[in-house]
């Protein structure tokens, strides 16, 4: 099977996993989404999206820092063709395909060969590959030419060329078997004694079996807690009935879709908060009329302003963090969301502006 056919056939099994700290890849095996432990960043909940699954909050049911594996609960519609773990061994020189979302570029498939079928790192074996994998590929599937899962793309050597490493599927099979053998759905694997620990039995973050401090337990207990202006922004979004977990793109970035408009809110290191919506693009005709309209509207708008960057029209709200208050911020962001959609329609239908082309939503 060539790479394109593999991607087309199995694309629905590929997930994107997002946390406030970054994003990675996952894939469906049976009724579980598999990814790396470092992708879920010690959180109990992550945001999941797939070809047929809009951004959804999902529960991390197993976190294994030893194998760098995590399992996420999947209660949604299953794909037509399901991925299977391979029964065959992997050999040096085998052709392989890595699928993932490197740097957020959705569903990127890269082909390569197995440079070394078994490369020891600490006491674990890894498959060394030369297929290009990058940040965002973590947790993604490594497939053979029969589209069988041979490994989980786990890490790369930074600043090197195409030195990628995948956890072989036999480790995953073992982990799935042991996890499924017990009925609890909040399991942490102790990286020291390797026992599966039920989360509720953990006290003060210590492993009840061997007594080691479990960092994952601490992170899961603490969860993600924004502070300062970030918290204020999330409070404002929540007050506008927006699910912040789903809207969150990173610790300081949120996205809201309203009608045809997409609104991005970013909090920058210099203390400036910019909420803006890249509306439509400038058309070929009546440009002067559009400019007049935007400048006139700027007279009446409060909190918001129209501007142009490159060839697109923006509606923006800018404020310095120290000036942001709940009430004013709420009015401004509510207005931005509402007006972005309204003005996008007006500019497209009355002034002939061009609808933005957008990549599918991550």
């Amino acid at each position: 099977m060539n790479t394109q056919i593999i991607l087309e056939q199995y694309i629905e099994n590929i997930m994107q996993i997002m946390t406030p700290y970054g994003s990675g890849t996952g894939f469906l095996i049976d009724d579980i989404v598999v990814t790396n432990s470092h992708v879920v960043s010690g959180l109990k909940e992550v945001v999941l999206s797939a070809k047929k699954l809009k951004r959804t909050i999902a529960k991390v049911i197993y976190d294994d820092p030893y194998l760098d594996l995590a399992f996420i609960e999947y209660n949604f519609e299953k794909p037509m063709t399901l991925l299977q773990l391979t029964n065959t061994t992997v050999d040096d020189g085998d052709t392989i395909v890595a699928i993932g979302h490197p740097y957020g570029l959705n569903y990127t498939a890269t082909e390569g060969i197995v440079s070394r079928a078994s490369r020891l790192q600490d006491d674990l074996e890894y498959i060394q590959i030369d297929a290009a994998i990058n940040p965002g590929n973590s947790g993604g599937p490594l497939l053979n030419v029969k589209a069988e899962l041979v490994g989980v793309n786990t890490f790369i050597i930074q600043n090197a060329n195409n030195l990628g490493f995948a956890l072989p599927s036999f480790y995953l099979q073992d982990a799935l078997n042991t996890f499924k053998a017990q009925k609890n759905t909040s399991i942490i694997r102790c990286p020291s004694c390797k026992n599966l620990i039920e989360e509720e039995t953990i006290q003060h973050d210590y492993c009840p079996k061997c007594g080691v401090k479990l960092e994952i337990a601490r992170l899961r207990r603490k969860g993600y807690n924004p502070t300062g202006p970030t918290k204020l922004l999330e409070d404002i979004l929540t007050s506008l009935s927006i699910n912040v977990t789903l809207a969150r793109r990173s610790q300081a970035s949120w996205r809201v879709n309203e009608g045809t408009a997409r609104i991005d809110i970013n909090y920058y290191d210099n203390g400036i908060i910019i909420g803006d919506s890249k509306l439509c693009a400038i058309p070929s005709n009546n440009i002067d009329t559009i400019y007049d309209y935007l400048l006139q509207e700027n007279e009446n708008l409060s909190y918001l302003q129209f501007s142009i960057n490159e060839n697109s029209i923006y509606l923006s709200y800018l404020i310095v963090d120290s000036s942001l208050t709940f009430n004013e911020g709420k009015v401004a962001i509510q207005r931005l969301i509402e007006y972005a959609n309204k003005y996008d329609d007006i500019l497209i239908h009355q002034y002939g502006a061009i609808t933005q082309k957008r990549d599918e939503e991550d």
Partner: protein
Amino acid sequence: MSWLKFFQTTQKNCKINFGRGINADIASNEEELFYKSYEAFEKNDIVNAYEYFFYSIVNYNKQISNKNVVLKIMDGIINFELFQGSAKIQGTITQKSLYAEVIIVRKENATVSLKRYILERNYQLTYANYYSDDKYIKLKLYQDNISLTPQKIFFPLRELALNADFDKEHIKSEFTEIPLEDITHLSNSNPILLKTKYEYINLWIQELEAKVLTLPSNDNSGMQSFLYLNILFKIDYLLTPKYKMFQQLSKKIQEYFGNEHATTEAKNEELKRYVLKLKQLSFKEFSDNFYIAKYTFNPIEKSSYDNIVTFINESQTKIRWYKNNRYAQVIPTIYNYIAFYSLYNYGMNSVLKELFYILVNIQNSSFFTDIGCTPLYNEKTQSFSKRLIISKIKSIIEENHKKYTKLTIHIEELNFSSLDEFCNSYYTMLKNLNFEEK
């Protein structure tokens, strides 16, 4: 009366401003006023808070207000005007908010390119934005008074003022057919002074061209750069053109330092072409680039003193290299260049600015003589007005001693044996100042 006092009182009164910035003294109690404003905001005493704030940004010449801020307070409402070069900021403050705007051009005169330009500028601005009403295109600022501090007014007003001034100048330079509006506050430069400035720009270009011919035929790109950049920095500081000349001059300097791909030779060629353009300006074309205005905000961010010291050190190392390699002809230019470059690029405290001014006066004494300022050096006799120089330096130190208690200058280390030696010793003096505040 001591002989020192005699020199101070008999010097001509040089009222000409040099370089960019407010070219004036800030209020002596500026910090206190700023703090009072802060306290009034804390108490929600809006009118007093704004009043103190505005008094803190008034600037002075010899303790007389420049009237760069005009306030009218009636029934708890403040109407104000601020001046920043070509921009006149008019605003109103109520208990709830501040609104300020600058009229830029008539709406009917705005071309599609101008509208595109200002809509793109909206994307870059943080607090202010462009809009149009029935008559004008304006830059506006709205701030509510919730959780205000003087800092939260200063930066938005500064953005409004600096950008309105910059954009009006840009429009005049780039969209020449569109007349600027609301510029009646600008006054014309003295025609005699303009004539002198015109003569000097041509003289400097002639001297530059003659100097270039003295350079070795190969391997002279570094020296050429010093010559061309020096004249641009010099024009900026001593002539202080506005509008197109300022815009183009800034662009050329920016391109020189910003273009990492072009060779030094290619960049010199570009500067040479621009200098040739300046040479071809008629007096009328030249004069169109000048006006007199009031300023409220400094366009250059304050630089650290250490940065200036580092730059002087690096430049002195270059001078030593040229000396060792027998390229003496470029050394006086580099001594000039250090001062002009620093004045163009670094936001300095008033002490450094005044000390640099003394050096520039010495290095360009005929120019200062011809514009009616007391020269500190005689080019013909190659002699210094040593006592006057020393008294000027001493009075700068004395005037600022309250603020910088550890500021001292070892005047005995200044070397008056030649202009080059003096410059070298003066830069060494500038590198050893203590600006620790009490």
